[in-house]
């Protein structure tokens, strides 16, 4: 996908959002029609205006524009691999809890990103979890995600 096409898709999405936002204020209570509903309507109108202006500029400059390709990731396997791993990790937190999920996430992510030495992987993972336990859990008593399975 080219950058120009991505821009067009994003701006079109924003334009739809602007219309929906404007229309949604009709369901606000009568008491706030002159205050917060007015503010939200203004946001919708302003977004619609500026998106239309940007789309106008997009069409006006389309001949001079280069068809540069949009590269999201330089190493797609690692980029998307890490993102998927983060999604799974976040989901696992509510089932397994913080420590078991992290024990799996840290070494897997390190291996995915090219770490090879088992000692550094083990020591880093253990060190980080010990730090979280001592500082976050024990000293500051910050609540960590708890699992429903354990």
């Amino acid at each position: 996908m080219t950058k120009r096409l991505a821009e067009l898709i994003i701006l079109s999405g924003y334009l739809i959002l602007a219309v929906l936002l404007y229309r949604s204020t009709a369901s606000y209570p009568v008491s706030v029609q002159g205050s917060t509903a007015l503010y939200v309507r203004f946001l919708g109108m302003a977004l619609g205006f500026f998106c239309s202006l940007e789309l106008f500029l997009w069409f006006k400059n389309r001949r001079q524009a280069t068809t540069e390709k949009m590269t999201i990731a330089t190493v797609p396997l690692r980029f998307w691999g890490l993102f998927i791993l983060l999604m799974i990790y976040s989901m696992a937190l509510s089932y397994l809890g913080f420590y078991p999920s992290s024990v799996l996430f840290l070494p897997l992510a390190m291996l995915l990103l090219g770490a090879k030495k088992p000692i550094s992987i083990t020591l880093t993972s253990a060190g980080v979890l010990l730090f979280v336990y001592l500082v976050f859990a024990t000293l500051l008593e910050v609540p960590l995600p708890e699992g429903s399975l354990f």
Partner: protein
Amino acid sequence: MILQALYALFTPVSLFAVFIGTTSGVIVGGMPGLTATMAVALLIPVTFALEPLTGLLLMGGVYCGAMYGGSIPAILLRTPGTPAAVATAIEGYPMTQQGHGGLALKVSVIASFTGGMFSAFILLLIAPALAVFALTFGPPEYFLLAILGLAGIVSMADDENRLVKAIISGLIGLIMAVVGTDPMSGMLRYTMGFTDLFDGIAFMPALIGMFSISQMLELTGAKSIITDTSAIKKIKREPLPKGIHKPIVLGSLVGTIVGILPGEGATIAAFMSYNIARRRSKHPELFGKGNPEGIAAAEAGNNGCVGGSLVPTLTLGIPGNSVAAALLGGLLIHGLIPGPELFTTYGEMTYAFILSLFVANIIFLLLGLFMAPYFAKISLTPTALLIPVVCLFSVLGSYAMNNSILDIFIALACGLAAIILQKTGFSLGALILGLILGPIAETGFAQALIMGHGSYAIFFNRPQALALWGIIFLLLAPPIYQIYKQHRQDRAT
């Protein structure tokens, strides 16, 4: 009174409390998701067992330390430890990538120190008079203050195309801030049935996603943050850039004034100082690419907020921001009621507390200067080990604010969206600014219209409001003229 306060402060126990508080504050502030507010709030039960003065000194030290600490990961990892460090990350991280992470840390600690000392001095001298001035601000002025902050969006753009995209980004931020409970009617809006969204989209997870997770995903293609490892060894010898004192002085002033206004936080102070410094800089084109002036202004601004926010807290019992609110809780628990009595009956304790802020600033200055070269070495850590660790703290930081798993997904979504938006030329800084200022703008706008019975004249018929309009005009006119001039030049060529 001051002499008695000094005597009370310079005891081993008191000094130790300030030292422990400041050091813990730097550590807490340096961890994404752990804010100064949280640290002060967590300390309140600990201070039960202590003498009231020792407890206060501990909390004051944490406040000062945390405001500075947030800049360390912002500079080294583009992961702001506190929301107030976002503007620092915009300039600090590019400097780290160029091998000047140590210099960025040095500028940050010196600016933080100056801002903190200046605001503590103001607090000591003219606290009651300034607090009365801040009270004259009403909803129309708060709305205009938010507009003043949003005016910074214009300065984030270099040409007309960028300007329109920056405004769109800012509007998206403002729209994201609308999610949650309507401040006037209590009606739930755009929450899609998620109870976690009743209070709106928390900006800390959004911020962690946009700045930290997006950066870690981008780094998956690199071996370490910096490629030239020889540059990192020059840290100790790098002198401070020339003319850095101007943005520091400016940031200290802006931070203190913004801090005095109830409800205005360090984040707004930092962004406002950053934008004014950019406007006044001889090289505005270098902003966003690693300009130490930006770090200096932002850090002086957010630390200037510390003393400023304590002015209305101590004199009127109106907290200047959320950290000051937590600190106010600590004061009340020890039976110290804000007001004139605090400066007379309990004067010794109050002045000892104010003077301890100077000591806390000196402590974090020494810590920062001594530790900067060691902190900077983080940028040499192989990404294969660094990325998972930063991701874990980002996830933890997103969760810790509200104990919400949904916040983690918001952070991840914001991370991915940030990469796409940045690649297509939208401004993340403007988006975050919109998200932070949205609630203040909406509440101020709605309350002002109710006060004015629906008439917009309320935004123009008060002297404070007119003064703010003047400042907004002064901030907007030069960049818009610059863009117009650029547009005409382009057409001519």
